[in-house]
């Protein structure tokens, strides 16, 4: 699916980014991310270690969730246009959880000749609890 190019003129404050949900994250997903990122902290894949550390089960790496959420902004604004991506981790994501990613444009401005858009983004689990809160900034081109 080729992305439709987003121009500065297409964006207005309050616009919502097209949201999506990733269903049913599994332990296998955590292990795949361990392999791709190199994060082999046993708390994310070793049940015994997770329990000894006071957790009911293993849980997802924060950066895995941040990675899932990042598609929201790269699909919307274009990977090449992204200037800043920031996340704060709120609640853990457990095996079987689904993650819904959504966001909204909060600012649109021309700064030093660059056409900047900014937005707030978040990921929520199936109970509606915020797992990640974040923001992004991108520089877009103009139609003219």
């Amino acid at each position, binding site marked *: 699916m080729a992305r439709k190019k987003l121009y500065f003129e297409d964006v207005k404050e309050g616009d919502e980014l097209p949201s999506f949900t990733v269903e049913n994250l599994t332990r296998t997903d955590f292990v795949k991310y361990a392999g791709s990122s190199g994060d082999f902290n046993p708390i994310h894949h070793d049940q015994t270690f997770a329990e000894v550390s006071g957790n009911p089960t293993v849980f997802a790496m924060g*950066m895995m969730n941040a990675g899932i959420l990042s598609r929201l902004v790269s699909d919307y604004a274009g990977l090449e246009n992204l200037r800043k991506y*920031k996340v704060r981790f709120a609640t853990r994501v457990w095996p079987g959880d689904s993650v819904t990613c959504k966001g909204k444009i909060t600012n649109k401005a021309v700064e030093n000749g660059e056409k900047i858009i900014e937005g707030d983004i978040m990921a929520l689990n199936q109970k509606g609890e915020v797992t990640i809160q974040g923001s992004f900034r991108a520089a877009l081109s103009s139609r003219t």
Partner: protein
Amino acid sequence: MADKGDIGKVGKPITIRIEAGKIREFAKSVKDANPVYYDEGVAKTELGGVMPPPTFLMTLAHWDDGEGRPHVKMDLRRVLHGEQEFEYLKPVYAGDVLTAVTKVTNVFEKSGGRGGTMTFVVMDTDFTNQKGEKVAIARSTTIETGQVVAR
């Protein structure tokens, strides 16, 4: 425990080559189906080459087995990743060789609830490419809680 004396500590410079295969594997693991990560032709047309996903540079933290991390004493059982921020200054492409230098930029305390006093450690990793251009900054905030946190 980390303290203000850790501010300014700098880790060893680490060199990492950005690889298309690793980008593809990473994109898959964060369930990002954007064809620019899987089809070099599409990537070339749309972006001028294969670019890593927004959070890809985080892999450096594990790739070097922590060697580039400034030495700050923290109890791993009480450590949480609080925040992560990336600033993208210039495009990064597969084939680039980046040098990363990590520095402790802030250490501060806040009194928390169940976790007792929390110590926040902020580290900036600056990435420079083979042309000497600064391409990205990864800023991570790690929280050390006052006691082991169970949720």
